[in-house]
């Protein structure tokens, strides 16, 4: 149950060793690791507590209107939103209705309502600037692109990718383990130290068609690694998962079967039993407090969102693990680091903000064939990495980045299907619409190009001059639009779909790609894979945190999340977020605690 144990006075509350801001994946991992290290940890979460026993109760948990449509598990925009513009010379306007992206709110964060696609990053993703220059030369990088290395290698992160998969109960098929081919996994995936803890999820009918067709065209299909349990599983923390039954209620819902990994299912049941752990919900942190020299964090100031009273907590170590946007926002409102200024490219906070370049295409099957799109699992599906893998020659194609192509039938519900049907020259209402919409629901399937998105000089986050949240703070301002490099990449990979669709027996195909000059449209769902703005790297002039995710400016502050990624990749971010959290926690435990202070000299 909710632990709304708000301290009315800090004097009566023993000072914890560690304060963690945000109870999603990163916060829960850090809390687990640091309590294991013997530290007392208080985790603050601005939303309500969430548990499977309550939010996941069947059948109310699978109510589409309440779930994905009214968005009960998502950020409450009425209290706090952000403003959006496409270009720096525009007035940014508030994001008033959740649409393009859906940050979470409450315990579990976006980790409660995610789908479960659980990827590792590749060496190429982590070392994209160096690899690009070595292969294509520096002039291949567009002048306005802020391409950077992460400052950490795949080899260094491998044990932490492995650990995250074992905690999440991830289902997948390896290709190589310790250099030996072990199965029919992704031939382009980097080598692994161990198998996935669970076998790959089964293919839905649509995914099986894609697998056969892609192989026939000459590509290399593989099962998407899914943090949906293909079998019963008990993770190293003793947390149990039940087998996924492909009910189709992952993204936007709390899984009623304990099958989709979430902080609520996979970490918090163990954490909540630890007397050194304390969770304070409905505590919206307003500021990370600093000492007089502004070199050390002393604690946080938060508002109890129910009583609207303010409180201060102090600690020796502060870990910022809110959603990507909120990590950047809290750094800015706390005055930590120098805000990025695109005019002279000074400052780092808010720099290298990026998104994910996704378009969804559609294949229609004969009318005697039913795609049963309501069947599905959020992380399950079949993908190809032929245009995402490091060896694919981008030279002739003329872009940096790449994109997997996949059928990830996550369970399509009728309200969403009906609202999304029509358009692009097709009727959106009336008799023709109704006929075509029902046919589309019963006999078609979606194929996504889930591509990378790079970072650019004039794409960034800062504070809005006009709009304020419910607590009087300036809202975050997002300046974002699509750029030619990423549009070129998207068009290139989407064009590869026609051959696969033909091989699948398509009676009709609708290929959807971004068009040059097309502005980012905040009204249309894209994905919640936002990143950057507080990036990791080798230099304080181009990054906010060092390779251990420690603030360059405030050494007892760590900032963890996809905010640390310097640019996007073709994969979903959560696997890398979790690995970076375990990586950072490992170095805090083995190095920082014995010798607090900067772990990398600037």
């Amino acid at each position: 149950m909710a632990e709304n144990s708000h301290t009315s006075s800090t004097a009566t509350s023993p000072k914890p060793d560690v304060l963690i801001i945000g109870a999603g994946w990163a916060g829960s991992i850090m809390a687990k690791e640091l309590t294991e290290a013997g530290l007392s940890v208080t985790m603050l979460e601005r939303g309500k507590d969430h548990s499977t026993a309550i939010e996941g109760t069947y059948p109310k948990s699978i109510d589409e209107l309440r779930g994905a449509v009214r968005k009960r598990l998502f950020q409450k925009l009425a209290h706090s939103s952000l403003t959006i513009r496409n270009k720096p010379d525009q007035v940014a306007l508030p994001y008033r209705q959740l649409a393009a992206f859906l940050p979470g709110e409450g315990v579990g964060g976006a980790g409660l309502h995610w789908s479960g696609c659980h990827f590792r990053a590749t060496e190429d993703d982590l070392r994209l600037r160096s690899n690009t220059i070595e292969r294509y030369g520096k002039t291949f990088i567009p002048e306005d692109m802020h391409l950077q290395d992460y400052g950490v290698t795949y080899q260094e992160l491998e044990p932490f990718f492995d650990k995250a998969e074992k905690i999440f109960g991830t289902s997948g098929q390896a290709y190589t383990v310790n250099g030996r081919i072990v199965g029919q996994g992704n031939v382009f995936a980097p080598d692994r130290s161990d198998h996935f803890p669970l076998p790959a999820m089964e293919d839905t009918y649509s995914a099986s068609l894609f697998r056969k067709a892609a192989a026939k065209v000459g590509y290399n299909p593989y099962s998407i690694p899914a943090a949906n349990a293909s079998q019963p599983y008990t993770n190293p923390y003793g947390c149990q998962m039940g087998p996924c039954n492909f009910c189709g209620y992952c993204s936007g819902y709390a899984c009623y079967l304990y099958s989709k990994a979430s902080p609520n299912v996979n970490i918090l049941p163990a954490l909540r039993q630890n007397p050194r752990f304390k969770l304070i919900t409905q505590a919206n942190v307003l500021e990370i407090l600093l000492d007089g020299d502004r070199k050390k964090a002393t604690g946080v100031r938060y508002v109890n969102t129910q009583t609207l009273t303010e409180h201060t907590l102090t600690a020796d170590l502060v870990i910022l693990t809110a959603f990507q946007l909120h990590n950047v926002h809290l750094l800015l409102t706390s005055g930590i680091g120098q805000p990025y200024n695109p005019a002279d490219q000074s400052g780092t906070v808010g720099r290298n903000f990026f998104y994910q370049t996704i378009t969804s295409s559609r294949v229609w099957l004969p009318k005697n064939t039913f795609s049963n799109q309501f069947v599905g699992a959020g992380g399950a599906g079949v993908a190809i990495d032929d245009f995402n893998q490091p060896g694919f020659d981008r030279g002739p194609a003329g872009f940096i980045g790449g994109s997997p192509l996949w059928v990830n039938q996550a369970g399509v519900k009728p309200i969403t299907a009906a609202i999304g049907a029509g358009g692009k020259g097709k009727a959106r209402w009336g008799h023709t619409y109704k006929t075509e919409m029902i046919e589309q629901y019963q006999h078609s399937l979606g194929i996504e190009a889930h591509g990378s998105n790079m970072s650019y000089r004039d794409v960034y986050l800062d504070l809005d001059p006009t709009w304020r949240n419910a607590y009087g703070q300036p809202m975050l301002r997002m300046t974002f639009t699509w750029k030619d490099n990423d549009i070129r990449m998207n068009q290139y990979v989407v064009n590869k779909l026609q051959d696969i669709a033909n091989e699948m027996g398509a009676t009709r195909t609708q290929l959807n790609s971004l068009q040059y000059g097309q502005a980012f449209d905040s009204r249309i769902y894209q994905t919640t894979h936002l990143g950057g703005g507080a990036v990791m790297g080798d230099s304080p002039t181009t990054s906010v945190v060092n390779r251990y995710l420690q603030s360059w400016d405030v050494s007892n502050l760590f900032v963890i999340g996809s905010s640390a990624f310097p640019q996007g990749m073709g994969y979903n971010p959560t696997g890398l977020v979790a690995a970076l959290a375990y990586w950072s926690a490992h170095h805090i435990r083995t190095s920082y605690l014995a010798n607090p202070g900067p772990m990398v000299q600037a």
Partner: protein
Amino acid sequence: MTSSQHTHTPKAALSRRRFMEGAATLGGTLWGNTSHTHAETEAHSPQQPLNAQTAPNIHDLPSSYKPQFFNDEEYLFLEHACERIFPQDSHGPGACALGVPRFIDLQMNTPYGRGELWYLKGPFINGPAELGYQLPYSPQDLYRRTITPINTHCLMTHDALFVELSSAQQDDILSSLENGQLHFNDIPGNIFFEQLRTNTLEGAFADPAYGGNYDMNGWQMMGFPGARADFMDWINQNGASYPLGPVSMPPSSQAELNEGD
């Protein structure tokens, strides 16, 4: 009240009484011979809160529903407009028989209807469409500020209320809203149309507990099995059609469903 295409003319002075006379005599148009009681009753207080006493039984035929938020003129418009968006045809029932107007009426007295799920703080500035909704209005406001002006527009241009127009004429009005040629008060037609279309489709396919999707007929039409949520044996059946019909959530109090989270 303004319209992008038509200025105020003497015709616009047609009285509200004319509206309600029209509304009262038109009750039942979409319902054939089924009884249609709400149009014969007094207009309801528009802000009447939903409570246990007034919560409808969603097993009752939608045609017997008395609106709690909308007045009779508005509700009649809703019945006709929703039916044009999602019409009855050989696939199955349209919006009215599915209870879509009832669904929308019930949604108005929820946190969603009151705009509590949206960020609605000023200042309000118009901008490029891509930057999203920028009006100060809740769903309640969008309906309340638009339906009567649409009827006035219909009176000015066709000397008839929306509900009295032919289907083709109704479609023309809806198209002019959809493409933004019409706007009423300061609400662009396309904003109102998208609100109406979205709520119509929600009402066709949300769990019947919310007052639409009557008897799960929307799900039946789509081939969606509702709350079954267990497809262990149906992950891949080589394109065969799913054999079981839908199930819905067990009866639950309307107030509880709509209280928000």
